[in-house]
């Protein structure tokens, strides 16, 4: 059985750990998600990428306390300081307000 060790998971964290556990299991077939990692999920794209790169469809995820989905509040705190948000919204007009009342 192939293993994705903690470091591998960490390196995949930003792009992969976003989808539901149910989906992971249904796509990977033999994937195992252990209890302590129920908050950890993986995207189909990343999963498929991993399958192709490693020529395997079997995974075992190793517990890693670092891997935890951020709360919405914490995530939005990061969003307001992120490059994509600042670059897209700083000094933008709020747009013309067309009254409907």
């Amino acid at each position, binding site marked *: 059985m192939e293993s994705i060790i903690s470091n591998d998971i960490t390196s995949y964290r930003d792009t992969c750990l976003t989808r539901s556990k149910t989906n992971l299991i249904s796509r990977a077939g033999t994937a195992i998600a252990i209890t302590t990692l129920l908050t950890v999920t993986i995207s189909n794209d990343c999963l498929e990428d991993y399958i192709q790169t490693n020529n395997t469809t079997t995974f075992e995820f190793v517990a890693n306390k670092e891997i935890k989905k*951020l709360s919405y509040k914490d995530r939005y705190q990061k969003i307001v300081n992120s490059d994509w948000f600042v670059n897209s919204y700083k000094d933008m007009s709020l747009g013309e307000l067309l009254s409907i009342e």
Partner: protein
Amino acid sequence: MSWLVKEENSIITQGTVLDNIPWELDPAPLGIVLSNPCDLEWEKASYLLVASLVPAKETIQMSKEFQQKVESVKDYVISKTKWKSFGVYLKQFINNQNIARYYFIDPTKAIEAPLLFVDFQHLLAIPILKKDNLEIVAKLPSPHTEKMISHFSSYISRIGVDRENKKDTEALINQLADPYHSS
């Protein structure tokens, strides 16, 4: 008011707030479904159209308009008169009184998140076959969903037309205000 409610049924429809949307942004925002509910119910949608939910406070405060309003303010203290007009300005967003790029949502009754704007410019069409990858978070209840959609359709169908020049506008103002006039 447009307060979200927790979604107890697992059906994705118009107004459903979703997570795990493949925005290809880090960190990724939540999104809200704009797709027609009948298309979704009768499986006539090939794609799920979603708009992003961006933080309202920072979006307002980073804007040109807000920066202009506070440029003369020192130590964050605003005079009472100015504060009143400030409140009127912000109430337009809170009550979604106007058609604009953004639609205000207070999500705090359903999820622990900051005040949000639906951004009608930040859209994504997700193949419907991938909808099982999405996580249902909450729902914008009726009639707020319908109001949001009416704002979206009005925003997206705006048509730019030439305006009266300054001189002609001034003359029209004078005609409409007559007999009142400037001191």
